[in-house]
């Protein structure tokens, strides 16, 4: 078994309105910053042990599918690194 950190990033699908990101963008603009747009995402860093990085990825994928992301509104990606 090897120790891995699986990083799951969950973001809204393209085209799904993100009112919190829009509010954050406006707040940055009020502070005087110039920006075109802003997107936010949730990042989960999961420490786990698995036989291979593929197995770690598979488990993290299932976690995203079953809980961390809502497929109706979210896309997600998974990165796996040894730790």
């Amino acid at each position, binding site marked *: 078994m090897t120790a891995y950190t699986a990083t799951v990033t969950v973001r809204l699908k393209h085209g*799904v*309105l993100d*009112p*919190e990101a829009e509010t954050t963008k406006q707040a940055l603009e009020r502070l005087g910053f110039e920006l075109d747009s802003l997107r936010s995402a949730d990042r989960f860093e999961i420490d786990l042990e698995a036989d291979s990085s593929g197995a770690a990825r598979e488990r993290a994928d299932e976690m995203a599918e079953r*809980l961390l992301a*809502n497929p*109706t509104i979210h896309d997600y990606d998974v990165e796996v690194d040894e730790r």
Partner: protein
Amino acid sequence: MTVSIIRFGGSNCDRDAERALAHLDIDADIVWHEDGLPAETTGIVLPGGFSYGDYLRAGAMAARSPIMADVREAAADGTPVLGVCNGAQVGCESGLTDGAFTTNESARFQCEHVYLRVERDDTLWTAAYDEGDVIEIPIAHGEGRYEISEERLAELEDDDRVLFRYCDEDGEPSAEANPNGSKHNVAGILGDRETVAVLMPHPERATLPAVGPTDGQGILRGLESTDSSH
């Protein structure tokens, strides 16, 4: 017959629902989610509130609690299930109904009275109304914007699964009358079976004459016309 009102940690409209159902002479018990669904359950309410503190996403944790497997099974067997507000979010997260309720377009919590247009009058939940009726019911939510792909929403509309839409006083589902940016002004939808319905507005807060309009009574009456085999 006994309606089970499922109480999760953080539910806070369970007692309102119980009181409203009692006013309508509908027998109901509050059931703690860890105790499982009672065998004599003839109808289910997923009440409003902030189950699990809205951690991760509103309704996400409650939707994956063990009792929801019982609720899905009962729903598949035809037991009426009504999800209100947080219960509607739980309903969508658990797959009882399509789509998702997410952050209001305003990014703010909104607590106000709204008008709903009754889209169908041939379901348990709307038998007391006529199609096109305008009813007044309060909302109180920060994550009530109905979100779904246009393709899937078109399919749901073709199947006549939209139960209520936000509208103005005259029944027009205008952008101005849409409090949270919901797609196509959707306020409530039906599941695969018409005995399953979820909505963001609170019918239990529009039932007791002492607290205002009573237009929500008809929706709750869907829980009294239950199949005697359950």
